[in-house]
């Protein structure tokens, strides 16, 4: 692997690929959600990430990370946190709005699954935005 990418960049691209591969079908194929599927995806993403990171570590000779990597990492976490916080406010606002209108019964199992799906989706979007922000920062050579 003698590309112009640093070790951190390669791991970021691998992370993004794993996230899109595992989470993509969940959000874009409109599957029937369940706790088992969410748990399965979490397991799948962990296994895939470990495998990809292992392969990259084996084939990358220079695994140095430095202060710029840490700065970019922090920027990514900030972007991810801001997105999660914003979407949480919107999500909780919608929950309050629908609850006060009496659109659903909070004790219903389907409502619980729906919110599990929504908040899991928010976490996934936060994670993807963190990774994309870091990749863009590397591409802009910040």
């Amino acid at each position: 692997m003698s590309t112009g990418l640093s070790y951190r960049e390669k791991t970021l691209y691998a992370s993004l690929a794993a996230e899109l591969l595992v989470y993509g079908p969940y959000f874009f194929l409109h599957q029937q959600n369940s706790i088992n599927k969410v748990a399965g995806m979490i397991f799948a993403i962990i296994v895939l990430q470990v495998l990809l990171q292992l392969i990259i570590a084996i084939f990358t000779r220079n695994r140095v990370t430095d202060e710029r990597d840490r700065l970019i990492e922090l920027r990514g976490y900030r972007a991810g946190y801001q997105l999660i916080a914003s979407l949480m406010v919107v999500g909780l606002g919608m929950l309050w709005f629908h609850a006060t209108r009496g659109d659903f019964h909070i004790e219903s199992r389907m409502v619980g699954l729906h919110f599990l799906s929504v908040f899991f989706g928010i976490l996934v979007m936060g994670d993807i935005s963190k990774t994309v922000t870091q990749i863009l920062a590397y591409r802009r050579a910040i």
Partner: protein
Amino acid sequence: MPVIRNQVRELRARREITQQELADQVGVTRQTVIAIEQDKYSPSLETAFKVAMVLGVPLEQCFQYDPKGKR
């Protein structure tokens, strides 16, 4: 013009050191050396001192502060 300008590329060329060699001696990645040379990244004081030390020049000959520059 950026706030922190540098002569790393010129000094490195004068000493015939590659970007990778400089990166290895300073303890950063080659990509960071590239970003510094392109004035897209201002290194920490510690890294700036290390770069100057490896290039064998005083810090102010390697990095200059321009108060009128843009961040």
